[in-house]
C-alpha cells in the first residue's frame, strides 16, 4: 500500500487540505510558490493515475473502506485519468504565472486567500472527475463553483463589473446545481443507488417515468454548467471580467469538466440514439451545437474586448464538441474528447498570452492592441498560433479536431451536419482576422519600442503554443487514447 496506491484520493485531498493552510500564510510570495508546488504535485499524481489506467484497467478506491454501493467509490478509468491530468496540468500551468498576473488586481494581503480559492477550485474539479458517486459529483461541483465565484470576483480590482459577473454566475450556477441534485434525487429514488456504474446497470430495469424526469433535470443542470446555448449568458461576462489568469484556468477546465459529466452519463443515464423517452443526444445536441457554433462566432466578431471575443469563441468551440457528442457512437465520443483536449490547449495558450498582454499593456480591448506585432512579437506569434488553431488551419490542433468531426459526420452519412460545421467554422476566420488586423495592421497612437511579455508568462505560452502545433502535427496518440476511452464507454458499458 505505497503512497501511490492512495493516488486516487490524494489527487483530491492534497489541494483540499493545503488550501486552508495556504490561506493562513501571511506572505503572498510564499503562498504563491506553495500553490504552484501543490498544483505541480497534484499534476504528478494525476499523471501516475494516467500511467496506471493507460492499459485499460480501472482503479476502484473505496473511501474509508466502505465497499460500494454503500460507500463512496472512486472509480478511475482512462477517461477520468485524462480529465484529472487536464485539470491538474492546467492548474499547474496557471499557478506558475498566477501571482505575477493578478498582482495589479489583488492586494498582497488578500492573495493567499485567493490562492486558497484557486486550490479549492482545483480540488473540486478533480474530485468531480475522479469520483464514481453521483452525489459526490454534486458536492465537488458546488465546491469548484463556489471557488470559481470568488476567483471571478477577484477581477474587481481592474473592472468592477467582475462583481456582477460573479453574482450572475452564482445565481445561475446554484440553480443549475440544484437541478442536478433534483435529477440525482429522482435517479436515486428509482434505482436506490448513487454509484454511477451500479446505477448504469439498474436504470434500464427501473420504472420509466421517474428516470426520465431525473434525466431531464440532470440534462438542464449540466447544460447550464457547460454554457450550452441559451443557458450560456454567464460565460462571456465571467471570462471577460475575471482576472486573465483565472480566465485561462476556467477556459481550460470549467466547461470541459461539465462536458466530461455529459460524456460519462451519456451512456448511463441519457438514452442511446435508438431509445425514445430519455434525452436522445443524437437529435438534441447537433442542432444546439450548430446554433452555438454560428451564434457564438457571430457574437465573437462584434465583441470589443479580446477576452470577450475568445469567450464567445469558446462557446462556439463547445458547440463543435456537442455536435461531435451528438453524432453518437464510439467515433462521436472520441471526436468530442479530441476536440475537448485540443480546445483546452489552444484556448489555454491564447488566454495565457492575453494574460501576458494585459499584464504589460493594462487592457485587452481590441483597439488597444495596435502595434502589438512590433512591440510584443513573442506574444503576437503565440496569439497567431492560437488564432490559426481556432480557424482550424492545418498543422494546428484545431484542424485535427475539425477534421475528425467532419470525417465522423461523413462516415455516419450525416453530410448535412458536416456541411453545417464547415460553413459555420468560416465565421471563425472573420473574428481571428479581426485580431490579426488589430495587432498587425492598425497604426498605434505612438509607436512604442519593443517591450515584450514578462518572462514568467513565456513558459506556459510556449508550452501551450508548442502543444497546439504538436497536437496538430502528430494527432495520432491523442486520437488513439480517445478511441480507447470511447470503446470502453460504449462497448463495455455495464
Amino acid at each position, binding site marked *: 500500500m505505497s503512497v501511490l496506491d492512495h493516488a486516487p484520493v490524494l489527487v483530491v485531498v492534497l489541494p483540499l487540505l493545503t488550501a486552508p493552510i495556504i490561506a493562513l500564510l501571511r506572505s503572498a510570495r510564499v503562498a504563491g510558490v506553495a500553490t504552484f508546488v501543490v498544483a505541480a504535485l497534484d499534476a504528478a499524481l494525476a499523471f501516475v493515475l494516467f500511467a496506471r489506467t493507460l492499459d485499460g484497467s480501472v482503479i476502484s478506491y473505496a473511501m474509508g473502506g466502505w465497499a460500494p454501493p454503500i460507500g463512496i467509490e472512486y472509480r478511475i478509468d482512462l477517461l477520468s485519468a485524462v480529465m484529472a491530468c487536464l485539470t491538474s496540468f492546467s492548474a499547474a500551468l496557471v499557478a506558475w504565472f498566477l501571482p505575477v498576473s493578478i498582482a495589479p488586481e489583488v492586494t498582497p494581503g488578500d492573495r493567499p486567500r485567493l490562492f486558497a480559492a484557486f486550490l479549492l477550485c482545483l480540488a473540486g474539479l478533480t474530485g468531480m472527475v475522479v469520483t464514481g458517486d453521483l452525489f459526490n459529483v454534486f458536492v465537488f461541483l458546488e465546491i469548484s463553483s463556489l471557488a470559481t465565484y470568488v476567483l471571478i470576483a477577484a477581477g474587481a480590482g481592474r*473592472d468592477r463589473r467582475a*462583481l456582477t459577473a460573479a453574482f450572475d454566475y452564482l445565481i445561475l450556477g446554484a440553480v443549475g446545481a440544484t437541478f442536478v441534485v433534483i435529477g440525482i434525487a429522482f435517479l436515486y429514488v428509482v434505482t436506490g443507488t448513487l454509484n454511477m456504474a451500479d446505477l448504469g446497470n439498474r436504470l434500464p430495469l427501473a420504472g420509466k417515468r421517474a428516470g426520465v424526469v431525473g434525466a431531464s433535470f440532470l440534462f438542464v443542470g449540466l447544460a447550464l454548467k457547460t454554457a450550452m446555448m441559451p443557458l450560456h449568458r454567464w460565460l462571456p461576462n465571467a471570462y471577460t471580467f475575471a482576472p486573465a489568469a483565472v480566465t485561462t484556468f476556467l477556459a481550460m477546465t470549467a466547461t470541459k469538466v461539465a462536458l466530461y459529466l455529459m460524456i460519462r452519463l451519456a451512456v448511463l443515464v441519457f438514452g442511446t440514439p435508438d431509445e425514445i423517452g430519455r434525452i436522445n443526444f443524437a437529435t438534441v445536441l447537433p442542432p444546439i451545437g450548430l446554433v452555438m457554433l454560428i451564434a457564438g462566432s457571430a457574437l465573437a466578431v462584434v465583441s470589443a474586448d479580446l477576452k470577450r471575443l475568445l469567450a464567445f469563441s469558446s462557446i462556439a468551440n463547445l458547440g463543435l464538441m456537442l455536435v461531435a457528442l451528438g453524432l453518437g457512437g464510439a467515433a462521436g465520443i472520441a471526436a468530442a474528447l479530441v476536440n475537448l483536449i485540443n480546445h483546452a490547449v489552444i484556448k489555454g495558450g491564447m488566454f495565457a498570452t492575453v494574460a501576458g498582454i494585459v499584464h504589460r499593456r493594462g*487592457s485587452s480591448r481590441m483597439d488597444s492592441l495596435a502595434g502589438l506585432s512590433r512591440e510584443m512579437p513573442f506574444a503576437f506569434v503565440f496569439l497567431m498560433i492560437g488564432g490559426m488553431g481556432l480557424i482550424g488551419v492545418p498543422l494546428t490542433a484545431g484542424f485535427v479536431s475539425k477534421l475528425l468531426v467532419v470525417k465522423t459526420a461523413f462516415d455516419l452519412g450525416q453530410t448535412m451536419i458536416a456541411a453545417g460545421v464547415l460553413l459555420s467554422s468560416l465565421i471563425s476566420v472573420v473574428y481571428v482576422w479581426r485580431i490579426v488586423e488589430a495587432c498587425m495592421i492598425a497604426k498605434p497612437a505612438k509607436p512604442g519600442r519593443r517591450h515584450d511579455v514578462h518572462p514568467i508568462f513565456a513558459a506556459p505560452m510556449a508550452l501551450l503554443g508548442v502543444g497546439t502545433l504538436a497536437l496538430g502535427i502528430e494527432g495520432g496518440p491523442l486520437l488513439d487514447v480517445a478511441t480507447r476511452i470511447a470503446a470502453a464507454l460504449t462497448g463495455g458499458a455495464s
Partner: protein
Amino acid sequence: MKDLVGLFPYWAVALLMMTGLYIVIAQGNLVKKLIGLGIFQVSVFVLYIAMGVVSGGTPPILETGFVTYSNPLPSVLILTAIVVGVATLAVGLALAVRIRESFGTVEEDELLPLTEPEAPADAEPHA
C-alpha cells in the same frame, strides 16, 4: 384522496420550488434573489427527506427499542446539501455587499446600465 394526503410532502416541494424560482426570476433586488434561491434549495431538501421516509420508521437516529428506521442516506446527503446551501448564500451575500459598495445599488435594473459589457472598463479604486 389517500394519494393526495400521502403525497402532501411532494406538493409542498413543488410549491416551495416554484415560489423560490419565481422570486429569483421576478425580484430585482439581489438580496431578495438570494432569498429566493434559498427557498428553492430548501424545497430540494424537503424532497430528499420525504423520499427517505419509511412508513412507521423512526427518524434515522440510533435509539434502543426502535427496530425500523427511515432510510438514513437521504438525510445524510441533505446534511451536506445544507452546508453547500449555506456556503452559496454566504458567498452571494458577500458579493451583494461588495456590489453595493462599488455600484451604490443592489437593484438589478439600476445595475444593468452600469455593467454594459461592451463599454470600456472604468474601474473604481478599491472599495
